[in-house]
């Protein structure tokens, strides 16, 4: 195994299949196992109006049985080998992730192909899955963190699909039929935009050949282009709201605004500004102000959700309900500071070095490397991205970070959401 552990063009094989699939492979000869991960170009954005949760439901239903075998037979094959495979829906894409011992890669790949191309949606399993999803939604609706996050999305993304929960609502999930799932799959699942990475104790040439043999003949002429996102509605004023969840001991607060897409030129500047705000060390300035100095929360930090679209740049904390306002004020003060003055030279340098230093750690497992390869492809970063990464990170200046913070975070026009017990 390469001592540097960082994938690059010299040790990563990339192939574009004629049907649009991009396959990537990298060997980790020391590993007795292999990871297979990737994504399809379909997600919750493809939900028809009023049918929230359909894409998520479809993704989850794929593993409930194929035309060749029922669900128990499918999982019997996987679990007997100590392997795992899962498919899960997202907003823009649907992800899959599998792993096995090296000797079982043909089995794993074969099952993936069955699941993606020939799902059977057996009626009985669909009803069991529906009960599981509905229970998940009932638990979500009791979770103050989830509720604050959902309320934040509604406030931050008016008129935009990001305001809607991918997993849907109980009343929409109840109405989805087996036919809806099969139709959604037939229309939206296909090879175009499919990315697959194979990393572990297998030769890249052999891995790509296996992917080609398994998926190279997949064709779906119906497969639509991914839906374009509507423009964001600029916020005219602060939007603040609170939702009550009875019987809870703690509140969660989320505040922020839409941030940059991953491919945006100022993404790295925003990412570093965010690290200073609520990531670095024990959650940056927010952790310092809210947890370390004021002792007001077990957690307080921030994150940048940039993906294929303008994901949220948000700060969050879990607090005693009586301290909600106090904590929101402290967090707003930190956001104000971030847009009023540049971060210090030392802060920027700390965050830059941390971002670079974390790289080998994030790449120590097959799953970490495979995820990185999919990321490179999904966002068009280039196979040499992780080799260039230190230079990309160090090129960001204090002024760049300030400009990015100002572009996305206007302290007077943030979305501010809280969920907690009645007061």
């Amino acid at each position, binding site marked *: 195994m390469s001592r540097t552990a960082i994938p690059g063009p010299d040790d990563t094989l990339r192939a574009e299949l004629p049907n649009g699939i991009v396959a990537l492979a990298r060997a980790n000869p020391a590993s007795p196992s292999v990871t297979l991960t990737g994504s399809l170009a379909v997600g919750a954005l493809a939900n028809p109006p009023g049918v929230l949760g359909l894409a998520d439901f479809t993704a989850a239903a794929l593993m409930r049985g194929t035309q060749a075998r029922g669900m128990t037979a499918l999982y019997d094959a*996987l679990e007997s080998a100590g392997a795992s495979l899962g498919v899960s829906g997202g907003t823009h894409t649907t992800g899959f992730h599998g792993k096995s011992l090296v000797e079982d890669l043909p089995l794993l790949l074969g099952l993936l192909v069955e699941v993606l191309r020939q799902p059977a949606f057996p009626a009985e399993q669909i009803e069991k899955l529906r009960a599981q999803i509905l229970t998940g939604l009932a638990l979500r609706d009791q979770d103050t963190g989830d509720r604050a996050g959902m309320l934040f999305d509604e406030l931050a993304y008016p008129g935009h699909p990001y305001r809607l929960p991918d997993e849907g609502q109980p*009343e929409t999930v109840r109405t989805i039929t087996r036919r809806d799932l099969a139709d959604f799959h037939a229309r939206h699942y296909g090879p175009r935009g499919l990315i697959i990475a194979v990393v572990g104790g297998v030769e890249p040439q052999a891995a790509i050949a296996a992917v080609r043999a398994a998926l190279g003949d997949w064709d779906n002429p119906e497969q639509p282009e991914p839906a374009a996102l509507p423009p964001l509605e600029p916020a005219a004023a602060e939007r603040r709201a609170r939702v009550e969840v009875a019987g*809870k001991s703690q509140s969660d607060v989320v505040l922020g605004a839409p941030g940059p897409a991953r491919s945006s030129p100022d993404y790295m500047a925003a990412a570093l500004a965010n690290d200073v705000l609520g990531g670095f060390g024990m959650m940056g300035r927010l952790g310092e102000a809210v947890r*370390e*100095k004021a*002792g007001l929360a077990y957690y307080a930090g921030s994150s940048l959700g940039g993906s294929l679209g303008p994901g949220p740049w948000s700060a969050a904390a879990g607090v*005693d309900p009586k301290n909600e306002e106090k904590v929101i004020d402290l967090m707003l003060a930190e956001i104000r500071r971030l847009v009023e003055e540049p971060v210090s030279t030392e802060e920027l340098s700390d965050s830059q070095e*941390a971002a670079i*230093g974390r790289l080998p750690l994030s790449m120590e497992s097959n799953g970490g490397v495979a995820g990185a390869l999919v990321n490179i492809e999904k966002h068009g970063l280039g196979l040499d991205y992780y080799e260039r990464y230190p230079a990309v990170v160090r090129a960001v200046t204090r002024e760049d970070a300030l400009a990015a913070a100002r572009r996305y975070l206007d302290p007077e026009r943030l979305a501010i959401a809280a969920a907690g017990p009645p007061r």
Partner: protein
Amino acid sequence: MSLTRATLDNGLRILLKEMRTAPLISQWLWVGVGSRDEPGGRTGASHWVEHMLFKGTPRFPAGVLDKAIARYGGYWNAMTYIDWTAYYETMPAEHIGLALELEADRLQNAAFAPQDVDSERTVIISERQGNENSPLFLLDEAIQNAAFEVHGYHHEVIGDMADLERMTRADLYEHYRAYYAPGNAVLALAGDFDPDEMLARLRPLYEGIPAGPPPPRPVRPEPPPSAERRLTVEGPGETTFLHASYRAPAADSPDFHAFMALDSLLTGPSNLNFFGGGISNKTSRLYQTLIEGDIAVNIAGGLQATLDPYLYTLHLTLHPERDPAEAEAALDEQIARARARAPEAAELARAVKQARALFAYGSESITNQAFWLGFAERLGGYGWFEDYLERLAAVTPEDVQRVAAEYLAPERRVLGVYLPTGEPLPEEPPE
């Protein structure tokens, strides 16, 4: 990959594993103190002390270290468990020196500044409030309270709210001084280093620390369970949970591996890795009967490796249309089956293959390997880890039936139900 061991004169045990797969080193310091060592009035002290060790020493004030570690792309954290407290740092190999010095320093010199004790009190109370938001925490806490009347396993690691509100700086500092000593610690490192050179770097950092008196062990053995206990916790929501918690064998019990195999059959393989994912459990007996039978929507189980007999808990999330009595009856049928009949040899062989795969996944992470070094040492030696698969493979179908018959007896369990009292949320019109 070789293992190097040393014990210093003051009793500190050091374990070093050279792994040249990535330019990283992971260091773990294990201290032999957990919530089992806390008497009433001091519940939660071990966890609170763990928090205080991030508040700085005279040499390394709070914030300085945090920055230094994060700046090199490292990460550090700590965990308090019922049996132990562990601190770890995973760093690029060339920067590990700082972490080496830090752990040796805070083993003895944590400041416990009064204002830090006060601000951490509210942080930990907030952490507990966050836990209380979860029905599962409320149910498990009630079960633990009922399952142990005299043993320190009676209370949750986070501690009782009454103690979190009242404990003083002096209580915490006394707890720290009593347990944080080289003779009560294990230092484990794995990664990109030469073991002899590493040992030469570690010796001067620790050799000057006095051994100290042996730590107090107020642990009182729990008498054998004599009758089933049943309890109900009510709270918000619309989902019912049923947990059946059985008094389980300790990690050093000759029955432990047979019990792991039993758990694999009932609920799927327990993942003992700290880093490195598990696998699904859809062919396990409880999934096949309870979920396929529309009794539950989720099942899980897990045996933990503990110093004293702790709990093996079967977790059921009920199907929205089922009640606890139906779930209990269906569960009891499976328990009775496991106690009455030995499993097929093929079922056992599968459990062994699954464990082998989980070990392979866990072997990728240097942090996970360093975790295993110290964790196994706390359980009686690294051999516990090295021999694990072999001992699992040696389990016979009759062993599995024997441990099921013995440990899954009704009088050994606490049956807890979380009953939701809340009305379903008002439904909003679909968009």
